[in-house]
């Protein structure tokens, strides 16, 4: 009789080990390296290593004039380029107490909201792809292209526009601008229903996002998580409501708040925000008043000595610009408080005890843009 040989059952791996995710990894959306400590496939710790694309924008600002700085801010959160420009322009205008023409305020508000829509579109596209739905990526990019076309007509840039200048705009809008924006909204209102059909109600998607990466309101405030990620936890932090600028105190829109704090809540905030942004644009697009596209500005802009803080709501959250001026044409110190940098801080906390596959989903739901972290 043949003897049965029992092969020893391998012991369950209890030791912790590290895995490097990035710096070149499709789901980190850029050059971010995450050192993940795992036990089996359970995440025990996430250590972000930043700096792969650190350009020293704050140091460069100390050598540049204010109109030059605007071109650098495009390169932080490149998906909210208009909104970043807006922050520096408002800082200079408030410091010099310049009243910009009404026409400029209208165009800036419309451009900001277009930026928010296209940023959320690209986020939706890549978030779907992180979850394995490649169709989302094509849908998202297809619709985003329409906004880039509208921008290209007016600003000449598709990605980095540098369209705002202190006091106004680089040049006036294209004659077809209003017509094209209205056509886009009509188009996108139809298409966004497809977004919901393909992802929002999808059983697999909901299984993977409900109760994944929960973040309470207290923690969101403590970690300074702003933007859609914070509002998914019920933290009312919309700068457009709390510290209105441009025309946000005149237009009607809701601050989207969800209280669940999980990945699905963060997802739904962004989906609803696209509707709100379209609602804002619709109120303004037919009423752009005639007038100049820029206020009269001096050739050399010097801010009075002192310090200034300006915040705007970028597509990712609260963007703060802190500037100390000594009266020269270049700032003494310029600090950008970027939303992605704060939001990255919570990744370790909310992804612990989840599986490594969930880490990709949680990271995607925070909507990190790496040049915004590294600056």
């Amino acid at each position, binding site marked *: 009789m043949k003897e049965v040989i029992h092969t020893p059952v391998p012991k369950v791996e209890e030791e912790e080990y590290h895995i490097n995710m990035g710096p070149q990894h499709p789901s980190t959306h850029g050059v971010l390296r995450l050192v993940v400590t795992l036990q089996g496939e359970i995440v025990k710790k996430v250590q972000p290593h*930043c700096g792969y694309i650190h350009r*020293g924008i704050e140091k460069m600002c100390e050598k540049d004039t204010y109109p030059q700085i605007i071109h650098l801010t495009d390169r932080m959160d490149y998906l909210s380029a208009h909104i970043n420009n807006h922050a520096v322009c408002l800082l200079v205008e408030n410091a010099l107490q310049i009243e910009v023409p009404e026409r400029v305020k209208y165009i800036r508000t419309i451009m900001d909201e277009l930026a928010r829509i296209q940023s959320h579109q690209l986020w939706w596209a890549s978030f779907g792809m992180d979850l394995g739905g490649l169709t989302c990526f094509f849908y998202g990019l297809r619709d985003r292209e329409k906004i880039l076309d509208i921008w290209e007509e007016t600003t000449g840039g598709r990605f980095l526009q540098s369209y705002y200048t202190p006091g106004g705009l680089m040049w006036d809008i294209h004659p077809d601008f209003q017509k094209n924006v209205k056509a886009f909204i009509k188009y996108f209102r139809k298409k966004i229903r497809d977004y919901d059909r393909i992802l929002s109600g999808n059983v697999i998607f909901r299984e993977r996002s409900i109760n994944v990466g929960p973040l309470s309101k207290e923690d969101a405030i403590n970690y*300074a998580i702003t933007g859609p990620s914070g509002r998914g936890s019920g933290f009312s932090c919309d700068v457009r409501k709390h510290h209105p600028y441009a025309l946000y105190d005149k237009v009607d829109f809701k601050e989207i708040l969800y209280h669940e704090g999980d990945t699905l809540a963060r997802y739904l905030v962004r989906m609803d925000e696209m509707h709100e942004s379209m609602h804002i644009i619709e109120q303004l697009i037919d009423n752009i008043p005639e007038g100049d596209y820029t206020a009269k500005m001096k050739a050399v802009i010097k801010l009075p000595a*002192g310090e200034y803080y300006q915040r705007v709501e970028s597509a990712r959250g609260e963007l703060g610009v*802190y500037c100390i001026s000594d009266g020269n044409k270049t700032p003494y110190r310029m600090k950008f408080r970027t939303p992605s940098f704060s939001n990255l801080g919570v990744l370790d906390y909310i992804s612990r005890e989840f599986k490594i596959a969930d880490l990709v989903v949680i990271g995607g739901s925070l909507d990190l843009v790496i040049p915004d972290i590294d600056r």
Partner: protein
Amino acid sequence: MDIEKLKERVITLVPEAQLEDNKQFVSFVIPSDKFRLVVENLKSSEDTAFDYLFCLTGVDMGKDLMVVYHLSSTKYGHEIVFKVKLSDRENPSVDTISDLYRAADFYEREVYDLLGIKFNNHGDMRRIFLDENWKGYPLRKDYIDEINIVEL
């Protein structure tokens, strides 16, 4: 709490606090050894409830190094700015607030990385952007930029 009461509260906590001329925020310069005490108090007190640290940064003021804290209360909506000046340029240090505000964890590491200000009891005081063996602190005004990357 209105602004006047807030000012009084800070001055009763730290009599040495200097009120600054600032149109936008209530702004105080606080001695570095008393700073943590003030923040702990203002965060835990029911009527101030400063629970949201929205900006933390460092500045090289030439002679001194300075850390600037922007705090706000999500409950009441009031805001305050604290500044801590550090005259020791060789070994500047201030107590951490990263245990009170988790957001400060990364902010403080950034300030350490670019200005060389150490935060006591931080727990993970490493550089965040630059390489571990990078020499000097780039945002200091006396930093010598050998490869001239900024002016290229």
